[in-house]
């Protein structure tokens, strides 16, 4: 009964070209010199021009922007995992109390508030508090992430039997110890999901860094700022785009299954 449907396989492979062709186009364009940008644009470069990357690297200050993006993303992910899970634990184990239940709905209801609503006041606030920098941005990701992450974690923690904790308590462990020693390790699958979602959000985000950061620039922000200077030099622009996309693409190639299942776990819960 396991007859392979080759016709359908072919059709889906053809559909996947809609994803692959723009990516292929990006790669070959980044490798060409401007005079090779003729015809369909799909031809392989007749002569590879590595200097596009060097030019883009210098022009946009790539190492600095990549470092900024990496710092913000990694910090946001780590802090989110450590703090949001803790808050969710306290809420999940006290859902029968009105205070904690109220808190749960307080955080989760923020999911319905689109960012543009708070955008203008937040910008005022962060610049007033001296948080118009990387630290401020990291803080905002961790705090805004609460809305969805509390929802994910609480659902997951409630499925963990309380008896596991009670055993540790009998041995004299306090609430903090129980969380870090017993619960946090059990959260590994949900931590993976929250980590991946936070990573993709912080790494690819444009609007929040655009309005919050006063000096530092993330990778997407750099593309925006230098767009006018790329204007005529498409091959350099594409080298810059490719370098900006490369880190996450490389991670994805190696961790594909893991990323998809992580995202899936988050969405099926959601």
């Amino acid at each position, binding site marked *: 009964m396991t007859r392979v449907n080759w016709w359908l396989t072919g059709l889906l*492979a053809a559909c996947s070209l809609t*994803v692959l062709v723009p990516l292929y186009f990006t790669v070959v364009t980044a490798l060409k010199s401007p005079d090779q940008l003729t015809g369909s644009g799909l031809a392989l470069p007749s002569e590879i021009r590595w200097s596009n990357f060097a030019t883009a690297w210098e022009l946009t200050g790539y190492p600095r922007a990549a470092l900024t993006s990496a710092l913000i993303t990694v910090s946001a992910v780590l802090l989110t995992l450590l703090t949001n899970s803790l808050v969710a634990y306290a809420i999940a184990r006290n859902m029968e109390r009105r205070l904690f239940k109220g808190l749960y709905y307080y955080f989760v209801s923020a999911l319905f508030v689109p960012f543009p609503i708070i955008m203008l006041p937040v910008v005022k606030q962060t610049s007033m508090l001296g948080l118009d920098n990387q630290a401020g941005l990291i803080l905002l990701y961790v705090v805004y992430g609460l809305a969805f992450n509390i929802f994910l974690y609480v659902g997951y923690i409630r499925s963990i039997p309380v008896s596991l904790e009670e055993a540790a308590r009998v041995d004299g462990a306090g609430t903090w110890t129980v969380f870090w020693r017993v619960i946090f390790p059990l959260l590994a699958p949900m931590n993976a999901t929250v980590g991946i979602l936070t990573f993709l959000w912080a790494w690819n985000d444009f609007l929040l860094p655009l309005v919050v950061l006063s000096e530092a620039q993330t990778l997407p922000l750099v593309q925006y700022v230098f767009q006018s200077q790329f204007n005529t030099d498409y091959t350099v622009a594409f080298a810059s785009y490719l370098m900006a996309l490369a880190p996450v693409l490389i991670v994805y190639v190696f961790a594909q299954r893991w990323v998809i299942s992580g995202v899936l776990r988050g969405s099926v819960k959601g």
Partner: protein
Amino acid sequence: MSRAFYWMVLPAFVLFFVFHTVPVLQGVYYSLTDSPGYGEHAFVGLRNYVNLFKDDRILDAYLFTFQFAVVATILTNVIALAIAVGLSARIRFRTALRGIFFIPNVLAILIVGYIFNYLFSNYVPVLLGELAWIGVVVVAVWQAVAFNIIIYLAGLQTIPEDLHEAARIDGAGSWRRFRSVVFPLIAPFFTVNMVLSLKNFLQVFDHIVALTNGGPGTATTSVSLLIYTGGFQGGEYAYQTANAIVYFVVIVLVSIFQLRILQRREQL
């Protein structure tokens, strides 16, 4: 109950209140003033709200945003569902194909937008000109399909294989099987995807910055873009805050309305 639980939630509550709730309340307050975003301001009551409804720019932005969002939502869900059904059939290279279809979800929309901007301007310039809104739809759908496929795949996995077999033995063709067996079973996933897609597309921003910057003219100025440009550069801080609040109410109402309709369908 251990007192530790209070300490676990207190800092999060304070920070969330300061950085989320306070801005919401500030937004409500500023929307009732004439503040340009700096300096002094006076209380003007509901004037901003009244003016919103008389402003063609605002009306056009809402029309464009809804037109774009509705078309993009439908296309995204039809395409994603079709591909997901294909991927869960008896095909080869399933994992590799699934991996490829998911790639757009991990890429920054802004940069994807710049790449498409170049493709459009060289091969289909009309998608940056007269038909710019379709250009925005193309990029938005290209990106959003990735995520929706994954959700539909999850839904399709919940259907037991013997249900398919039973329908096949009854002689149902593949379209019939989809209509009367598969679709009703994944209806909850359809509801979630439709609501989330529409909500996300109504907030479209990055795509437009990269493709058209709201142009030509103001043809592709979305509500988010208008709030951003008017609020930060146009000296309309208070006015755009009022716009943002109206926009929030609209999004919540649309989501509730959509949920109602789709859930009623699910039960049929």
